[in-house]
Structures are given as C-alpha cells and as structure tokens.
C-alpha cells in the first residue's frame, strides 16, 4: 500500500498537508474568516459546555464503575466490526457505482443514501421488519437455523453498519471518480484483468479515500443510538453501547451522563487523531 502515490495521481486529499507555507503571505479574506470562526465556535461550544459542567471531583470513582468499561468495550468492538462489514460490502458497491455503467445507476445511487435521510429509529424498525423474528428474512433464519438477530451483539453490528455504510460508500465513490482512470486503462492495455487492475491499481490509488471513508463510517457507528436501541434493544454487556448507556444515565443522573459522554469523546477523538496521522497524512 503506497499511500504517497496519490500525489501523482491527483486524488483529492481530505486533509491538505502543507498549504500554510504558501498562503501565509497572503491575507485571509475577512468574508471567509468571520463565518469560519462562527462555524468553529458553533461546533466547539457544546463540547466546552460538557467540559465546564463535568463533575471533576467525582470523576475517578465514576470512571471505574464496572458498567462503564463494559459499554465502552462493546462500543469499540461493534463499531470496528461494523466498519469491517461496511468495507467488505461498501467498497465493491462504490466501485460498481463509479466504474460500471448500468441501467438504473442513478436510482441505485439514490437508494444507497436512504439510511442517511431515514431517522435512525425508523431504520431500526425497518431492520426489525426484515431481520426480526417475524421479518421477511428473520423468520426464515429463525426457523431454518434457529438464528435470531434482534437483542444480540450481531444485531448491534447490523444496525450500526446499516446507518454508517452510506458514509463509506459516498467517500469511496468520490475518491474513485476523482482518481485518474488512465492508470487503470494502462494496466488493462498491458493485459491486466479487471480484478487484477482493481486490487493492484485502483485500490492503492484510492486508499486515502477508503481510509477517510472508513474513519467517517467508524465514527458514525460509534455514535449510533436510534437504530441500535430499536433493533438490538438495550442489555448491559450484550447490546448496551456507550450512547445507550449515556441516554439511560440521563434518566437519573446528569453528571454520570456527562462523564460517559466525555469518555466516549476522548476515546474516539484519540483513536481518530492517531489513525489520521498514520493513514491519511503522508509522512
């Protein structure tokens, strides 16, 4: 995986590395600076609200409560598994949408974004209607193999993957459409089959796009609430992820909810920052 090859291929970078050296000499237009500042404040102030309101004195005891670590571990596991599932299914689908002309492609592209516009709770009910005990596929799975998905950890992964996959597909499709197809054509003229071209040329070419999509997908899966509680329910250690634990803590104890939210934020931001340095920016 040579990530630096995209420099030559002209792939749109999600994170430009060194623009500051050039632009430092020019003045930043005020018309951009003011809305940018307002935008930043809008995104950061709620986080500051959490930090100010956090119960710092009781923080150590709250962190060591057994339920907290269980929910955190479950959240990280399910979000990672959901991302792997999205990569396995979403990258080929994105490739299909970007590289193959077929009738109804525009409709398929619109359908892929359905989970984005669907309220997650509705998504959870839709999943129940398909994979539930009385669902179209779920009923058959239950009778033929005795497999039930609702109220299981697998159910959590499915709910998260359903909601998060569009983020991956849109990012990867965008990278594929932005990538220079001449490399693939060159490979084809040299006799490479389409599968070989895909694995040896296309994938390395759009690797940064896939990484960015996977990060978005993972982050969305980690924060998933509505579809998870509707489809997988809420049971500590099995389906109770951090967002569900936060919501229930809110019922009785605002301070506990804030602590849980902060843990989720710190862990996810740390992981994302680490991955960003490793995958997305070049050394």
């Amino acid at each position, binding site marked *: 995986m040579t990530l630096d090859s995209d420099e030559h291929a002209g792939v749109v970078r999600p994170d430009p590395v060194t623009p500051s050296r050039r632009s430092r000499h020019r003045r930043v*237009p005020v018309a951009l600076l*003011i809305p940018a500042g307002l935008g930043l404040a809008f995104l950061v102030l709620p986080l500051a609200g959490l930090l100010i309101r956090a119960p710092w004195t009781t923080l150590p005891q709250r962190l060591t409560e057994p339920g907290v670590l269980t929910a955190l571990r479950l959240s990280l596991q399910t979000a990672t598994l959901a991302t792997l599932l999205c990569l396995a299914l979403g990258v080929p689908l994105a490739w299909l949408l970007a590289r193959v002309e077929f009738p109804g492609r525009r409709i398929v592209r619109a359908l892929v974004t359905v989970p984005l516009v669907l309220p997650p709770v509705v998504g959870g009910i839709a999943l129940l*209607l398909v994979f539930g005990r009385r669902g179209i596929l779920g009923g058959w799975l239950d009778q033929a193999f005795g497999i039930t998905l*609702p109220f299981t950890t697998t159910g959590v992964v499915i709910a998260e993957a359903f909601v998060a996959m569009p983020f991956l597909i849109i990012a990867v499709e965008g990278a594929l459409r932005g990538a220079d197809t001449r490399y693939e054509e060159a490979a084809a003229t040299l006799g490479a089959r389409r599968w070989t071209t895909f694995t040896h040329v296309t994938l390395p070419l759009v690797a940064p796009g896939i990484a960015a999509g996977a990060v978005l997908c993972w982050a969305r899966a980690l924060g998933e609430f509505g579809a998870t509680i509707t489809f*997988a*329910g809420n049971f500590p250690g099995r389906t109770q992820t951090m967002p569900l634990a936060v919501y229930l803590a*809110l019922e009785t104890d605002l301070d506990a909810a804030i602590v849980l939210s902060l843990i989720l934020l710190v862990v996810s931001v740390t992981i994302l920052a680490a991955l960003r340095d490793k995958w997305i920016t070049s050394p």
Partner: protein
Amino acid sequence: MRIRNALVALTVSGLLVLTGCGDSSDGGATGTPAGGGPSGAVTVFAAASLTESFTTIGKDFETVNPGTKVTFNFAGSAALATQINQGAPADVFASASPTTMKTVTDAGNGTGTPATFVRNQLVIAVPKGNPKGVKALADLTSPGVKVALCAEQVPCGAAATKALAAAGVKLTPVTLEQDVKGALSKVKLGEVDAALVYRTDAKASAADVDGIEFPESAKAINDYPITVLKNAPNQAGAQAFVAYVQSEQGKAVLTAAGFQAP
C-alpha cells in the same frame, strides 16, 4: 475590494445575530385572564404513559376554556425533569413517579406540594391471543419466552423490579427499554413474547396486545404527581389545567384509560 468583502461579512454576521435575537422576543403565553377565566397557551410536560388520556383532557380543557391552547411534550418522566431543570419554558409537569417529581421540586422549580392525581400498575402485555400461554409472572421465566422490561432508571422499570422481587421471580430479559412505549412496541412487533407495562398502555394498544393482570403488581403501584411550575409563563392557565385534571371530567377520562384514583 477588501472593504467590500468586509462589508459582506459584517452584513452576514449581523443578520445571524439579528435572527438569533428575534427568537427571544417570542413570549407566546400571556395568561392574563381577559374575562376572568384562563387564556393563552398552556405548555404541559407529561409522562409518556399519559399520552392518550392527556391529549383528550387537553381538547376538553380548550373547549371549556375558549381562548386557551394546550401544547404537550410527552416523554420519559426523567427526560422531562432534566429539560425543566435546564430551563425549558413549561407551565405544568405531570410525572409518572414521585422520585422524578422530587428532582424538579428539589431544584426549586415546583410550586407548593405536588398533588397525586392518579395511580397506575403493571400488567403483563402479550401479543394478541397470548401464543405462549402466559398466565402469571412465573411463566415469564420458562425457556423460550423472551421478555422486555423497562430499564430500572425509568419508573416502569423500577416498578417491574419491585413487582418481580415481591413475587420472588428472577428473570433475565432480552432487553431493558428506555421507556414503557419501547417495551410495548417490542411486543406489538412480535419480537418478544411478553413485557411488563402499565395497565393503561396495554389498554391503549388493546388491538395488538392482551394485558394480563397479576397479583404482585399491587406491590408496585406508581403514584403520578402533578404540579404548576415556578417559572410557568402562564401561571393562571397552568393552575386551571391542574384543577381540570383533578375535576370530575378529568377523572372520568383518566379512569376510562385504566388509571386508578389515588
């Protein structure tokens, strides 16, 4: 050129500030009685289990008091209490548990002592026709029977824990739902075989579920307190609404929904 850019930015941010300020002038409820009776908008925060009966009572109240408009916010009691304590502009709070009401009165947001206006108790909700033949709490522990309970943090979950302890029944539910409607919907969708919900919720969904009474539910009766809030924008309207809920007309609606008199 630079001056023009700055002007555009100033205008844009100025507009943002102006529209932001515009919202705060929206008082809405005045509550000054024009002809002696209550008037204006009355905002009622009520427990999810009161959805059907309070909607009816609200309509009746508007008919009896022309010029009033009752708006409801139905949700889990605890979520409502948090919203009120964080300054939500509500006139009346009706909670499904005294504990939740206490978080509001302790924060100094209530007026006087909250009045208990109804009581509710649990039943076993099963899909229509009772396919698993559930008759008592003990049947819920048999293998192959999937049960949904409310999480212990919400009133219906606390009541379920109490009732199960009273019956000496230990069961492992497949899910602990965030509110009573969540537990009920899992029964309606056929994903679980039984759930412990309020009698009123089972009654409101009589088309899809059967409610099975069980004796231990008498050990876990929930009191519903109601109060006028201290920062109510419409004090007169709030008091009139609370009085109406406790009047004969209000009681009739609540009893028909399956609530018990306090």
